[in-house]
């Protein structure tokens, strides 16, 4: 039995502790805000925050979050309203297919939490491990900078 906090709420599961965190979040807790992209920690589509730090959930075992706090894209909402960062992504239309978007927003939120006023270059560096294939990069950077300006 592993217990942890998921988006602020205590949860527990009897799934084997070596199970990838992504599978547990997507399958057992029906989270949408973490996507399978590579299973090799290469693309960050599966990114979540563990105790505020970005973690690729596809390779992290469930046991790694025992007693910790896991935040997915869903957990960034302000109640039923988009967070400032989510709203900025909507305002900038910062996606095409949107498959990488959840990992982008989670990574960007982790950046803004430690650096509320990042430069364009700092945003790009922070997001360099998040792959986007559609070419929405500049929109995504604009969305993060917009959210930072509004902070």
């Amino acid at each position, binding site marked *: 039995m592993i217990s942890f906090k998921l988006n602020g709420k205590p949860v527990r599961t009897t799934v084997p502790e070596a199970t990838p965190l992504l599978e547990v979040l997507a399958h057992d807790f029906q989270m949408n805000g973490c996507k399978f*992209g590579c299973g090799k920690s290469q693309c960050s589509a599966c990114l979540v925050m563990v105790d505020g730090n970005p973690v690729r959930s596809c390779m992290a075992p469930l046991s790694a979050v025992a007693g910790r706090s896991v935040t997915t894209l869903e957990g960034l909402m302000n109640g039923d309203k988009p967070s400032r960062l989510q709203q900025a992504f909507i305002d900038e239309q910062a996606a*095409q297919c*949107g498959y990488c978007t959840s990992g982008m927003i989670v990574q960007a939120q982790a950046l803004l939490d430690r650096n509320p006023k990042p430069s364009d270059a700092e945003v790009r560096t922070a997001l360099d491990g998040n792959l986007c294939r559609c070419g929405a*990069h500049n929109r*995504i950077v604009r969305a993060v900078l917009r959210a930072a300006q509004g902070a």
Partner: protein
Amino acid sequence: MTLKINPTRRDFLQSTGYLTLAFAIPLEDALSQGTPVSAKPRLAGDLNSTRTLSAWLRVNANQTVTLMVGKVELGQGILTAVSQICADELDIDLQRIQLISGDTALVPNEGVTAGSFSMPYCATAVQQASAEVRAILLQLAADKLKQPTASLSVKDGLIQSTSGAQIAYWDLVVGEALNREATGLVKFKPASEYRYIGRPVQRIDLTPKMLGQSMFLQEHRPAGMLFGHIVRPPTYQAKLLSVNLALAQRMPGVVKVVRNGSFLGIVAKREGQALAAAKALTATAKWKVEKVLPGDDGIFDWLRKTTPNKIIQTKVQPRVGGPVPAKTMQATYYRPYHMHASIGTSSAMATLGEDGVMLIQTHSQSVFETALAISKMLGMAPDKVRCQHMQGSGCYGHNLADDAAADAALLAAAVPGKTVRLQYTREQEHLWEPYGSAMVIQTQAGLDEQGNVLDWDLQLWSTPHGTRPSGEPGNLLSARYLAKPFAMPLPVNAGGPNYAADRNAIALYDFPGHKVLTHFITEMPLRASSTRGLGAYANVFAIESFIDELAVAAQVDPVEYRLRYLKDDRAREALVKAAEKFGWASWRKTEGRGRGIGFARYKNIAGYCAVAMEVEVNRQTGRIRVIRAVASSDTGQVVNPDGVMNQIEGGMIQSLSWSLKEEVKFDDTKVLSSDWNSYPILTFSEVPPIDVVLIDRPGSPFLGTGEASQGPTSAALANAVFDATGVRFRRLPLTPERIKEGLDKAA
């Protein structure tokens, strides 16, 4: 915005069931049912093949309108664009539209969502259908209110007469009124009256994605769903000799082990269990493996030496009269295999229902043709396989979406009544997708004394660019591995001149002599199929590099040189606008920097696009830094400016990724590019600032824009690198190693 995609049939009937109330209407239908199709007027886009208005639109009592389209959302924004058009022509708020897209049981068969055809074919059909439905509703209201139609106006579905009488669309008994063919006679609104067309409307599917609400196929989790995984052979032609099925069958959670010839699959209760069992199968499987590939270094020689299935005279325009050329220039350009490389691996869900129908949720671009191919593979009647489109990761062409649908169906057939979801591993996606074909393009020009083109000669060598399912099971990977295998049909260079391998091989320039020859090779060392732009990416790279070489040789500015041969006014404007936006005239060269420009009109019939770029090349490392890029786009009437910009900009970034970094590596046995480390793509810190200038043409046809910018971008890049270094690079990608090697050799 309600985006209702893929409801169950029951939902659908519930929302529209009242329409079965028959109602005789006093409308004259000029076209009797018995008229042969050939005698009927040509209707707009896909309305020509699906002519009945009720196949496209329903007016619902719950104050909504259901819009049904065969084209599907791939991240390109098509569903938003068609909604904008429908809302404007029908005079309703956008929020009233409920969309059904890509369900083979419910929507018009619009073929494949590809080729930048969705705007010209689907959007124009929706525009005409919406305008005609509005006219019918006005006529119904006029009869009901006993007012002349000329006295009526509409606002958000509320019809008002100048006399003050009013009635809403939803209160009209529409009944059978829409169950008639379009006439093509109803005029569109003037552009000045549009509320949505031409405005940057937010994409209807993006907000839910940004909030973590369910929108992707991967987020659909019916109760009792099982998980599938498959085992691919180690190589394309490998045959399964033996495997320990019993071992996998005993593993935790395994519901079923499926073997059919060389096809191996697992159905399990959990994703991880299916994957573990698939790994166990892989470990015990023994295969007969062939060594027949030419390798990535040998592919270009292989293309030149292999006997083509066909040599196609794509364009034959001999020069009549004039001087003998004073000199001749020649160059050869190379494009390696590229991947679609979707960020999310391909996925599908399938259920063999009690009614004997195989229901498949898929992110395929070709739901109808894929359903037909799968029905043949499974030996089922065509109407017993139904595909429903659900969104997946962006695909950029024919990737593994259709194979995932076929594999999910093969597994679901083994566990009737259960839903099986399958999502490939990253290795499977990288190794097995049908790549964009490697190509060789040779150009030659006969020139006069001043360096003007007299004769332009282009030859290209390519394997196929179209092996989509097309209703043929042999185009589905797994169907080739079954105990009773389906042979792959011989690929064709479809669509006439300038369409597939030879897409954009005919330069838009008006040269006195102009020949294009396509060496179409149907043997495929690596599996290949439609990848964004097909042959256009490489052909435009070659044409636009070569014309730059000719301009340099003639000592003429490359923009001016192109304008000499560009007679199409819109093409000229696109080129000039991009140059102006870039600041071409005032640009000053500095050490290590260069500028380049590239232009094409996609397929010579779709969107016009020019790209200008500034780069900096580090001679020590060979590293190219793209400083900035600008593009112009003329795609006819712009429906969603932000959507067009997103497509142009996204296409440029993807093309920069192809052109700077991407090449599928393979040896004599197998593909070696198996993940993002061995097949790197462009990252945030490598993406330049991009400016896009739109040239709007209100009232002119929609041209389509999704594949317009890739070709011009690759040439602008190579031309800028030449400008910066004085060395011409003709083999893609322009990696630091290749640039350094070329610079060292030239020094």
